[in-house]
């Protein structure tokens, strides 16, 4: 039995008149006369009878003329409903269907074809052409003449009307019960849209309701994977035997999966005794497949998933109205899926934002609240955070004999992990005051301690550690893959980048770090910085570079006399270069000045 016939049979007790005709032009006359006689008994005037006869003949002719292949073996169904105010006729065809034109124009008077649709349109008040896979329904409506009630009916007619009314009542009751059930479910789902509902729970309830209302015995729901390359099972009902259904790659040979075929063709696919599932089709192991329909669903033209309903009974395919319900329910599901995805994205964004806040708090807590005095030197430091918190930090620690340990470092990474490692490095260095005056040894020891942890999380740290010795007017430094120390001494035309660098912390466990001693005579200036300064970019994407940074530092040293002014000069010139372009990395510096 085909879907159209089943649909008609299912509705047999709900229509005022229903008939089926062979898909043959010679059968049209008898069918339209049957309808005409039935309408005549109800007192419809001659002109209306003629109109309905013509309209139904045109519809039935089209159903016969445009059918293709084996579909011509299926009958054309005509249903007529005598309504309180209007008459409705439904003609079910098995053609490939067509798009009902928005406007139906009358062809030229000399044209020999093209008048059928015009007659249908002109002789009815409303026309809908509902297209489905395997069958289409042309719905025609026209108001009943107002004066019909003036006709005095005979007893027989009254009895017939009573019988019709009883049938209509049964029909309406059944339809009302079904509609009520559907509406209640749809209202319930609409109320849940946008709520923080678990998607699987929502889908499970929706599919169970849908199965009940459409009298399905099984359902499978697959959703497109995050990478868009495969369909992953979300639900298999009635028992959730999801494990029996592996994900299907979208590029699978279509012969193997009806779901993939439906996704590719972007249309419903029916299966049943006439078009059984392939032996290897995954649906076979998941649900009753006597009859069924695969429905791909889309949002903004993008495939979201596939919903499949199945029945065990091979003689009971889904009717057009049940397919409409499937579409309506799955529309709700698609909205909820998109809502859930947006919610996930919002949650991830909130978590990320909170993580950055935490990282920023950690990072700020690492910075010295007060810079110790170290005459004749004075120091000024700055830390400017980019939007994404990086792993920059600096520290200035008294060494006990008037000298200071200066630390500037950049943990490779972002967010909380980078901030935590910055904290660990800071604590590690502070725990070894005995090595403050031997920066190379301090760095090597810190590397040995941190190496296992850094390696485990695949991170590393660049750092510059320097001991500022006010007695000897020297800066003794060791560099672990960090930006060089910049020094300007009076008489220099340009500052110099000093110090030999070695591997960052966390690369090799036994790295040795060369130690550099630099004189800082009266008037000299030095700069410890992170790559956020030299890698500052402007709107055109150009990077400042070390050479230009040295020039700016030289200008700061020669054009300013104290460290705060020097630091301000540096940051202003960097800002000028950036020209309001957002910073892409943290900028951290320690500016040292030997008072004249």
């Amino acid at each position, binding site marked *: 039995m085909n879907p159209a016939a089943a649909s008609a049979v299912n509705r047999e007790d709900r229509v005022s008149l229903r008939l089926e005709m062979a898909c043959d*032009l*010679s059968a*049209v*006359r008898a069918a339209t006369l049957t309808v005409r006689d039935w309408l005549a008994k109800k007192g419809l005037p*001659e*002109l209306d009878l*003629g*109109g309905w*006869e*013509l309209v139904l*003949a*045109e519809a039935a*002719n089209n159903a*016969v*003329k445009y059918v293709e292949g084996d579909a011509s073996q299926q009958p054309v169904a005509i249903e007529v409903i005598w309504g309180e105010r209007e008459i409705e006729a439904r003609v079910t065809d098995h053609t490939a269907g067509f798009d009902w034109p928005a406007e139906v124009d*009358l062809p030229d*008077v*000399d*044209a*020999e*074809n093209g*008048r*059928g649709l*015009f*007659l249908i349109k*002109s002789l009815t008040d409303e026309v809908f052409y509902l297209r489905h896979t395997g069958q289409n329904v042309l719905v025609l409506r026209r108001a009943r003449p107002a004066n019909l009630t003036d006709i005095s009916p005979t007893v027989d007619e009254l009895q017939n009307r009573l019988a019709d009314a009883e049938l209509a009542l049964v029909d309406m009751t059944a339809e009302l019960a079904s509609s009520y059930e559907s509406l209640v479910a749809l209202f319930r789902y609409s109320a849940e849209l946008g709520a923080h509902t678990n998607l699987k729970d929502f889908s499970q309830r929706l599919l169970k309701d849908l199965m009940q209302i459409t009298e399905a015995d099984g359902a499978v729901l697959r959703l497109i994977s995050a990478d868009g390359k495969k369909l992953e099972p979300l639900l298999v009902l009635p028992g959730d035997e999801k494990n029996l259904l592996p994900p299907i790659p979208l590029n699978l040979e279509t012969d193997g999966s009806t779901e993939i075929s439906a996704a590719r063709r972007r249309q419903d696919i029916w299966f049943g005794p006439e078009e059984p599932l392939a032996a290897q089709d995954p649906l076979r192991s998941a649900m009753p497949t006597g009859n069924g329909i695969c429905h791909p669903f889309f949002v903004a033209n993008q495939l979201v998933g596939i919903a499949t309903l199945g029945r065990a009974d091979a003689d009971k395919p889904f009717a057009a109205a049940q397919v409409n319900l499937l579409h309506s329910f799955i529309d709700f599901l698609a909205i909820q899926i998109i809502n859930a995805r947006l919610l996930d994205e919002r949650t991830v964004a909130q978590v990320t934002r909170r993580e950055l806040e935490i990282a920023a708090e950690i990072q700020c807590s690492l910075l010295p609240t007060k810079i110790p005095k170290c005459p004749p030197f004075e120091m000024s430091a700055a830390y400017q955070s980019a939007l994404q918190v990086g792993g920059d930090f600096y520290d200035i620690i008294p060494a006990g004999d008037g000298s200071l340990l200066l630390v500037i470092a950049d943990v490779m990474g972002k967010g909380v992990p980078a901030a935590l490692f910055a904290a660990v490095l800071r604590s590690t260095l502070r725990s070894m005051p005995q090595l403050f005056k031997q920066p190379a040894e301090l760095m090597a020891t810190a590397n040995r301690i941190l190496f296992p942890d850094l390696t485990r999380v695949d991170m590393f740290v660049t750092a510059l550690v320097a001991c500022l010795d006010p007695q000897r007017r020297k800066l003794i430094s060791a560099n672990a893959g960090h930006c060089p120390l910049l020094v300007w001494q009076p008489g220099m035309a340009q500052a110099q980048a000093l110090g030999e660098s070695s591997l960052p912390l966390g690369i090799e466990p036994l790295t040795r770090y060369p130690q550099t001693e630099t004189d800082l005579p009266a008037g000299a200036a030095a700069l410890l910085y992170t790559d956020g300064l030299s890698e500052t970019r402007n709107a055109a994407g150009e990077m400042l570079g070390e050479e230009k940074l040295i020039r700016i530092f030289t200008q700061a040293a020669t054009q300013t006399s104290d460290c705060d002014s020097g630091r301000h000069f540096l940051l202003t010139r960097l800002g000028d270069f950036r020209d309001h372009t957002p910073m892409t990395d943290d900028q951290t510096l320690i500016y040292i000045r030997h008072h004249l």
Partner: protein
Amino acid sequence: MNLAAASDGSLCVTGLDRLSASNCAAFKELVKPRLTDQCRLLELDCSTMQFIDSDGFGTLVNLHRRLAVNDGKLRLKEPSPMLRQSLRMLHLDEIFELTP
């Protein structure tokens, strides 16, 4: 259905009860060979005509065009109110001659 030719070359079709998709091709095959160049009038007696659909109207237009080549015309005799309404709706009453 009867098809009779008059001495002036005109043709008269009587006794046809319908002209629709299922029989219009046969009707055209029957009538068209009789539309000679001398035929100036084809009269279709519609007093028995119960039904014409769009294919039937298309067939009548086809015959009308054949007649018009020789200044002939198609006359529909005694069309029913329903048929008149359809002809008006399709503006075919402008090219066919209707007689009461």
